């Protein structure tokens, strides 16, 4: 005869299941599954780590920052594992084939043109003063003005907007001077 299920354990299991599903959904929403990680694996790992943390200290307070750290460290570990896997050479890969830059399949001509433009962007970014370069790069990575202000220690979103605007103009101007044409944001 089996023991009746522990109600406290069942409640915790339900909480972790709900949270894990949320984590898995967000990994897909924010495109982290493109980097070679499996959202289902990350979800399971997060749940296991949270259970272990709960077992280690049964009566302490549980903080949101701790939960966030568990998710962050799990995803970072998964990204590093995916990076190691990607660095291993595939036997059937042709060395002369164009480099896949991670944004889907493109034709050889377009790929060559894109590589040239990316090299131009890198060159011009390196010529911008560091403070402005970081702010522009964060903008190009998709962070909002408020997030840029928080991350870069800028007083306000408005101040971040001015820095981003000046930096982008400078970058576009240099690219134009080098003959790469006019770029969008």
């Amino acid at each position, binding site marked *: 005869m089996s023991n009746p299920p522990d109600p406290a354990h069942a409640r915790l299991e339900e909480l972790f299941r709900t949270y894990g599903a949320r984590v898995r959904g967000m990994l897909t929403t924010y495109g982290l599954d493109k980097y070679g990680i499996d959202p289902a694996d990350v979800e399971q790992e997060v749940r296991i780590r949270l259970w272990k943390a709960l077992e280690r200290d049964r009566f302490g307070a549980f903080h949101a920052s701790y939960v966030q750290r568990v998710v*962050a460290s799990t995803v970072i570990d998964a990204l590093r594992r995916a*990076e190691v896997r990607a660095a291993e050479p595939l036997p059937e890969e042709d060395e002369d084939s164009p480099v896949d830059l991670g*944004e889907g399949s493109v034709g050889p001509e377009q790929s060559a043109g894109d590589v040239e433009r990316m090299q131009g*962007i890198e060159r011009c970014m390196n010529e911008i003063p560091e403070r402005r370069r970081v702010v522009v790069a964060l903008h*190009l990575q998709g962070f909002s003005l408020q997030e840029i202000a928080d991350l870069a220690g800028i007083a306000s979103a408005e101040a971040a907007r001015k820095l981003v605007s000046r930096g982008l103009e400078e970058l576009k101007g240099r690219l134009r001077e080098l003959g790469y044409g006019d770029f969008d944001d």
Partner: protein
Amino acid sequence: MNEMSLSRLYRRLVTGRPQPALDAAELVDAGDISESRRDALAAKLASSTEYADLTRMLRALQPASQTLAEHLTAERRVAAHPARARDLRPAAGARRSQTRHLRWVGAMAACLAVALGLWSGHTDRQRGPAEVAATAKPAALGDRIFTTRDAIFASSGENAHHHQREAKRGGDELFHANFSG
């Protein structure tokens, strides 16, 4: 068609590059770290599309993490104090109905006590203080010292005539003074 989006080209440029060393705590507590570490973190996020996406995901996940942490803390509080275990306690509605019964019984008992007190006070006022005093302690009736029937009070009150009649009949020989010789 040529790709002319700076954002897309830049992200393609840095995607797949070796990841900078980044600590999870550093990423989560980005708003609370020192200025020098914050600049280093911003530079890492600027050069890593993976970490930039992870940072945005963590920000979006913050409310769910907050909710989970609150639930876990509540579950632990129950575990730390078994007497508060929710499973063993009736629901709030059931607890209210139990206390309502007890409260009703208590109220009835209090009303009964008040009614008895009022009734006894009312009957005492109707009988008057002297009667109450006389009936309050039946044992006092037997007190001979303070009764007017005692011979010592024979000269006063309603018993005076009785004693006079006794005296005429010569009942009391001891204290009877005969001055006639």
